[in-house]
């Protein structure tokens, strides 16, 4: 258990460094043409064509309640799969793949914004920077959460 490392694709979102477990990442895309879906939940940026598959694009900034007008928004996206459906998460930029030992994960600070609490698996302390581990499942079941909230 001790030396088991987990690999993450690091992404940047409004300046914040986040990590997505590498095994759930299917694709990393550069800017894509996205078709807007009217009436859709605001976090849904639209749909896009990925080699003949229709992928639902999620605006991660909106999903996490970040400022929407930030620079570089939606330039890149990461394709993940949730319940058999492909989703593309719009992010600012993609960084390196990083590996961390399992036991170094820290619990979310209790003061963290509720939206972040809901989707974060934990925090890694890196030198000079903190990395938020995003839980893909929790990121994408927001449709259900909204439904129950409403």
């Amino acid at each position, binding site marked *: 258990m001790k030396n088991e490392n987990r690999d993450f694709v690091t992404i940047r979102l409004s300046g914040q460094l986040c990590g997505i477990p590498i095994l759930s990442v299917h694709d990393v895309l550069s800017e894509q043409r996205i078709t807007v879906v009217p*009436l859709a939940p605001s976090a849904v940026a639209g749909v896009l064509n990925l080699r003949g598959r229709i992928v639902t694009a999620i605006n991660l900034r909106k999903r996490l309640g970040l400022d929407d007008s930030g620079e570089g928004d939606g330039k890149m996206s990461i394709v993940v799969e949730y319940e058999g459906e492909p989703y593309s998460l719009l992010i600012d930029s993609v960084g390196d793949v990083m590996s961390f030992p399992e036991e170094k994960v820290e619990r979310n600070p209790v003061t963290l914004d509720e939206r972040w609490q809901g989707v974060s698996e934990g925090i890694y302390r890196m030198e000079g920077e903190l990395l938020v581990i995003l839980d893909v499942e929790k990121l994408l079941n927001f449709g259900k959460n909204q439904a129950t909230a409403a």
Partner: protein
Amino acid sequence: MTHLVTWKRLRVMDDLLSEFLTETSESIDVVDVELVTLEQDPTNKPILDNIFRLVHTIKGTCGFLGLPRLETVAHAGENVLGKFRDGELVVTPGSVTLILAALDRIKEILAGLEATQKEPEGDDSELISQLNVVASGGTIDAQAPVAEEVEDDIVLPEITQSSNMLPGQVSLEELEAAFAAAPGPDDEDNDENAAAEESAESEGEDILTRIGGVEPVKVIVHLFHNRILADASVKGLMAGINTRDSKDKMRNFLTAYLGGKPDSGPSVSAAFAGFISHGITEQQNETVCKLLTSVLEEVDLPPLEVDAVVESYRAISVDILAEARDASKNNSKKDKDAAGTAKKSGEGSVANQSIRVNVQVLEDLMTMVSELVLTRNQLMQLLRNSDDSEFSIPLQRLSQCTTELQEGVMKTRMQPVGNAWAKLPRIIRDLQLELDKKIDLQMLGADTELDRQVLEMIKDPLTHMVRNSADHGIEMPADRLAAGKKETGTVRLNAFHEGGHIIIEITDDGAGLPVEKLKAKALKNELATQEELDEMSDNQIQRFIFHAGFSTAEKVTAVSGRGVGMDVVRSNIEKIGGTVDLKSIEGKGTSFSIKIPLTLAIVSALIVECRKEKFAIPQISVLELVRASHDSEHKIEHINNTPVLRLRDRLLPLIRLDEILGMADAETDTDEAASKEDYIVISQVGTFTFGIVVDQVFDTEEIVVKPVAPILRDLQTFAGNTILGDGKVIMILDPNGIVSQIGDNMNDTTGFGMEEEETSKKTKDEKEAILLFGAGGNDCRAVPLSLVARLEEIDVTSIEKSDGKPVFQYRGRLMPLVTLDDSYQLKEEGRQPVLVFADGDKTMGIAVDEILDILEDEIDIELSSGIQGQVGTAVINGKATEIIDVAYYIEKAFGTLGTSSTSGHMGIRDQSHLLLIDDSKFFLNMIKPLLSAAGYKITAVDNASDALKLREKGEDFDLIISDIEMPDMDGFGFAEKVREGGIWQKTPMVALSSHQTPKDFARGREVGFDDYVVKLDRESLMSTIVEQIGKKQNAA
């Protein structure tokens, strides 16, 4: 009707039978092969299991189809196989042979079945007893030698077989059998004449005519025989055969066969008995072909005809070769005899015409074709952008091929929904016996095609629902009679396409769902509290049956209530993205409606643009396209910001796509709307026609409907999404969803277009388009849109006074302008909105303050009004709304001006007495004053039995106008009663209905209506009344 049903049933039987034949002959072929493998490897369990399963299936299907002979043979075979499987018996060549013999017997019976649709006569007791002996562990010595021989035949290659076979080895019995099967010399002349006649009759297309009739055939056959006997390698085939007989048979056969009537001559086996009994080989057959060719050339036939005849022979020789193999396999005389008679020369038997393909293969093909279509679209897009390309012609061809390929692949997946229904008549029949009920099963739209996979998925739910309807829905005959219904209950299935969906309705005229019982059960199962139940509508309560464990039948019958409830049905339908809903009226019946989207299909869609975004609208729901701009014939007009369009003689409500999609931008809206031109896509959902306003219309494209991601699935507006030719993803609009979005008051069944016949009599007030307006005070008023001819805004300065009443000039005529009440003041300046009503060539305007809205709703008058000019008050769009009585105002307008009437029906004042029957009070209120105004004396009743009471009282009428859809006794029933006798027997009758299918018209005439008028079409109602009364007077 009766013979139609019988015919349908026959056809269903045919389909079942041919499916069975195909399936069974495939299974048998597999078993044949597998058995041989098993014999070599008796311990191979998977093979044994497979054989057992196949034979078991055959047995099961035979039992289902009522084929006792097949079933007993298969059953006996299965017993033996079962013993093998359980290890109780060792697989021996002898027992395998016996099973093979049983399979051969099955094949024979199948062949007979295919030819005559009936199980051929025959005795299988010997075979079965042998099988039983083996099954019980005994041996069958008598069969052993035969078994050995058969085994050899199977294992040895064919060539060796026939070389082992010496000429002349054929038994005499066999020959006799072959001769017996062929027509004797006595029949010959007749045959020949018949054949000659046939050849004369035929259009000269068949080979026989081309080679010159019967005479050349004679010569050819003669020479052919001589050649065969002269050739050493094939001479043996004719050994022991009477040459003259053989020539005659071959000639008759060829005459018939080449004349295109293969069934009228002797069979292949009779004509080529020698070839078969001597076990002709491929090699020998080649020689025979060569000989035939040389003979044909010798008689100076043109090369084309030579080829044709040789080709025909080759076709026949396939059968001959096959039979020759059979013949050498089964040397037993009995088998041979049966096979000889059962086999027919008919080519292309059902068994060979269809093949089975793994669904996955089709699925992959479909995906590839979808991709191909998309790529094609992309190429075509590129082509359109370049002016003159050398690619254009090959691309056109590619495009066409793609389209055809796509259609072909689609076809392989599409099956008529009737396939899923095929077993239902049988089920209903059995149910009738079992439950002692009388049930008539009607199936409409059985040829509606849907995707194979979808079909498979709904098969079971459908069967279950029909069973339910018959079991729980339809009452016992005595109860039905007591309730005043026909003794025979009806279960009706109806399938149709609607807006890219397939709707299947299952309607019964049974007892309906008992609301009180459901309530009690819901309470017991703690699905809802008493308070909640009190709040719920009947429909909501009835929907509880979709919850788990909710069977309403008091006792579980053998038929339904086996733990598979409606909840399973619902979840199965929802699994494929469908919905199911129900409407039920206690005592009247229940109607289920299943809506299945065509998510797998490629559909043609119209691409439109709205606010720079493209959308697809399924072509199937687009009626027409209208371009509207300020300078064109069509323009969008606004009534209090509600856009409407005049299209021919209708006023269409419009929906702005940008608004319903929430893309409208208030600032640009006003300026842009004024300047730009719009396109209007006229769509229809159910009976509701409306226009969707879009910015731009592009061409139509074949699109592959892909379901949207689960998070977007709640959006009713979209039916799915797809990838366009340019690689862009676009959303597919769902007109049904759009309609259900615009009307808050519309309940969720809007899109179903359910025929509101038997089941929903109480909610008779069907949805109609209603115009809401304000006129004095704060009250909201309404009038059915169908009564309004036009909406106008007139300049108040053009309003003049005539006889102290306001009038204005409208289209060159004076139009009276009435106000809703005398206290209402016309506007003093600006423009006055006016509702224009037309009646014949008269028009009348009602001055109003403003038009508020146009919407679809039921007019359900809750408070009838004592005030003149008002029909009553109804709740529309959640607000109490006064429904105005147009007829009253027409009377008011023309009561003062109408005396100057010169033409039309308004002038007739002969006080003809009309009887008006309609269950809709609203309609009666609407039409009665109108007819009185036209000078008729009206008696109105709201149901047929009251009308018949009037007849008993001896009241006489000049004309009877009756609604068709009425509770208890409908218009058809009423007409039948009237025509049966009594004082009204000769009275002209006019049917009124909101349905106007030719079938209804025909039915109406059949039961005695003289004419048929569509409801709310006042113009034709009036003229029909005049016409019918005129006729009556002329006759008198």
